């Protein structure tokens, strides 16, 4: 079966920030194929990343989530199918709590406990 996105050990995360909540990340329109065929995963806040500790002081943003996903969680080696030039590639919509992220501040939106972030790859077939 698929490798889980979240490592089972979270002991490397400082305890002061280890329990601020969790978010749900969902994939649709075929993007789940890039993420071990998982349509929905739960991630802790702050994000389980060890590559950057500078962001621990402020809540992670959706931009941080994208970085985490492409660097750590994505199993498909074709990173350009998710991120191009450091941003979510054209043709992928990002929805924060079922609303277009443009309505919420795009990359800069700060993730809160209970948020759902949905990545939808646009379909063209018919």
């Amino acid at each position: 079966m698929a490798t889980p996105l979240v490592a089972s050990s979270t002991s490397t995360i400082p305890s002061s920030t280890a329990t601020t909540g969790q978010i749900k990340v969902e994939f649709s329109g075929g993007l789940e194929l890039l993420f071990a065929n998982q349509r929905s995963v739960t991630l802790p806040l702050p994000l389980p990343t060890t590559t950057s500790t500078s962001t621990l002081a402020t809540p992670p943003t959706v931009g941080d989530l994208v970085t985490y996903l492409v660097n750590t969680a994505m199993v498909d080696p074709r990173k350009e199918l998710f991120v191009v030039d450091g941003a979510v590639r054209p043709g992928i919509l990002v929805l924060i709590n079922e609303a277009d992220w443009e309505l919420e501040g795009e990359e800069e939106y700060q993730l809160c406990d209970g948020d759902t972030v949905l990545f939808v790859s646009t379909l063209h077939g018919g």
Partner: protein
Amino acid sequence: NSSPSTLLTPPEYLRYGRQLLLPSIGLPHQLRLKSAHILIVGLGGLGSPASLYLAGAGIGRLTLIDPDTVEASNLHRQVLHRTSTLNLPKVHSAAIALRDLNPHVGINAIHDAFTTENAVSLVEEADLVLDCTDRPELRYLISDACVVAGKILVSASALRTDGQLVVLNNPPGEGPCYRCIWPRPPPRESVTSCGEGGVLGPVVGAMGIMQALEAIKVLVGRRKGGQSGTRMEIFSGMAEDTMWRSLKMRGKRKGCVACGDLEDIVGEKITRESIKEGGVDYVAFCGGVNGDGV
């Protein structure tokens, strides 16, 4: 072309009786359907059920355009066509079926590609447009043509076991267009066609039926849209829990080259003329090689 019809004939009363009973339809709205002219671009997996249900509902006139012929590999999902219409142009196969389903509907079958040359004039003649195509370059072209002609666009797509649906430029000039939501085309390597990725019949069928429903809702004033009222339905056909989700989409994009205000646009605004005279290269925009047929 779409002169208002002021009455129904007795056979029409009989035929539409079950929808005339609905408070949301009734005689005034049935006459609105009868006076409407809808352009359906693509008579494949989406266009099959969309055209069947729109013809059934008594839309006065349907213009169908598609360059393809019916192939055996279409029939698992393109249920408008038949084994007996294999190799016929899809629009002719469709016209046979739709005229027999409802002879009160005028069917205009165009066996041709939807191109930069005919796009605007075809869209201008219609009241409403359905995008039932399968390629990004056609989706941008149809949207641009709807913006310059001031028509509402009901757009759907499907691949594998997923589907998407959105009503664009609704009402014209107020709701976002295809470019507002997708200002940059997807990289060519990220675009999968139904031929490559496969598609499940009832999934694309559900999306096509939903297009027919949304078109009827637009015509009878039950899909108002507006600057912040655009939603996208996404369908995950194989899910065992929630299959359908309704997402709140952004409004118009300031500076959109198709529907933005002139003073906000960086670069050239798309116009009736620039489309028709080839000023917009849709194939190159979508990362393809010209000669692909737009």
